[in-house]
């Protein structure tokens, strides 16, 4: 193997077939493959972008011109007084605690925001907002999935790790799970900002991102998200995300044996009967399932 930095090329997958074969026959190959395989199981410590962003926002100064004031001993007393007043004011302003509403596994919840906008929170999700600043700025942070009926008024922002959704008065569903982001508009107009892409959705449009692929659909016929009716529905979604949702709805762990999780699934499952739910997923895909105990389900290819 004479190519420069060939290990980097190998890792990137840019070695030629011949070079690759040559490398695979060397003694070191196994140990390199193991290093990479094991490194790929490592993760950096948790980092909560939501909490960090909230903390950052508290630190950000208002963007105003800074004034240069000459130091004058007589002024020092007034300065200290001003600082105290300011500090007190800032404390008062920011001390108003954020409201956080969270649902656990297998739990749904519907509640009203200060302006009577309605939020239905799907399982294992959370919403954070500030009651006191609500009148000035309607914005909340969402982790997980929720359905919004927004009261008419100024703009309303839903902030997720995947992007920001802005609306005026409308009904829409947001699903922001790991590697999965979906917004469906059920009434009015919804604006989605994802990185520097901005999309406008109208009635019946949806916008999805999973595994870094973007899918846009329109003319959806449903008038409500399915989970409001205690069902989950999917249209051409990789099985992986369907199983993740099943795990959340029933608070179970699914162990798949040789299951191809990238296969696309169209269909739905109920939230009320695990056996029936498993049947609706497994039968069409020719998968066998066993419910080991209350918490574990095993899947096998038939």
């Amino acid at each position: 193997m004479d190519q420069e930095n060939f290990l980097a090329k190998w890792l990137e997958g840019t070695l030629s077939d011949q070079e690759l074969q040559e490398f695979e026959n060397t003694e070191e190959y196994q140990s390199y493959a193991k290093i990479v395989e094991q490194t790929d199981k490592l993760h950096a410590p948790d980092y909560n972008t939501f909490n960090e962003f909230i903390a950052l926002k508290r630190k950000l100064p208002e963007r105003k011109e800074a004034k240069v004031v000459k130091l004058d001993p007589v002024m020092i007393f007034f300065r200290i007084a001003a600082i105290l007043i300011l500090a007190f004011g800032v404390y008062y302003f920011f001390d108003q605690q954020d409201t956080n509403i969270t649902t656990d596994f297998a739990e749904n919840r519907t509640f009203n925001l200060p302006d009577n906008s309605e939020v239905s929170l799907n399982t294992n999700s959370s919403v954070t907002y500030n009651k006191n600043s609500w009148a000035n700025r309607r914005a909340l942070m969402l982790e997980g999935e929720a359905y919004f009926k927004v009261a008419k008024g100024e703009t309303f922002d839903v902030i997720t790790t995947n992007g920001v959704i802005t609306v005026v008065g409308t009904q829409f569903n947001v699903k922001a799970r790991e590697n999965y982001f979906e917004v469906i508009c059920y009434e009015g107009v919804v604006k989605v900002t994802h990185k520097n892409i901005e999309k406008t959705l109208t009635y019946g449009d949806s916008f999805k991102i999973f595994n870094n692929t973007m899918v846009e659909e329109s003319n959806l016929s449903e008038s409500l998200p399915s989970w409001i009716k205690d069902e989950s529905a999917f249209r051409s979604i990789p099985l992986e995300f369907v199983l993740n949702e099943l795990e959340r709805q029933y608070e179970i762990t699914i162990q798949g044996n040789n299951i191809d999780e990238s296969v696309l699934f169209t269909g739905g499952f109920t939230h009320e009967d695990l056996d029936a739910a498993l049947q609706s997923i497994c039968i069409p895909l020719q998968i066998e399932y066993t419910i080991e105990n209350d918490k574990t389900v095993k899947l096998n290819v038939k």
Partner: protein
Amino acid sequence: MQNKKEHVCEEKVFQSVFMTYATTIRNYIYYKCGDEYKAADLVQDAFAKLWQKCDDVPFKKAKSFLYTVANNLFLNDVAHQKVVLNYQSGTHKSHTNENPEFLLEEKQYNEKLQNALNKLTDGQREAFLLNRIDGKKYAEIAEILNISIKAVEKRIHGALVSLRKEIGKI
């Protein structure tokens, strides 16, 4: 529909930039120093700076601005700790029939690997972990570290060679 008025001073854009880049910048600093709290603080400082200077930083430059600022802030106080990474063998991804002996072996190997990772040079560790853990392509790592792609390849090659040597030695 691409948005033309993407400007970092716009709160929404700023939020979106944070959501997009914060984790990778945190990880990048973490791989350098092994102090997750310092890394998180630096990310906040870098974004605070971006907020102040948002008028002068066009959207396209925001990313490299953030990395440069985080890096400069980092150089000012260096106190290295051991980088500790979480080991996760995946939930319902693939495994099932793993016996205790196998699990123990995995655990021991993981310890060796983490020690070996800590013995890499900072440059090698950053490049290698940004690639493996954060899934960054070499071109993007080159941009983050402000070096050439070839230099990234060299670091990654070097990282693998030293990891193998180090793990084989123990």
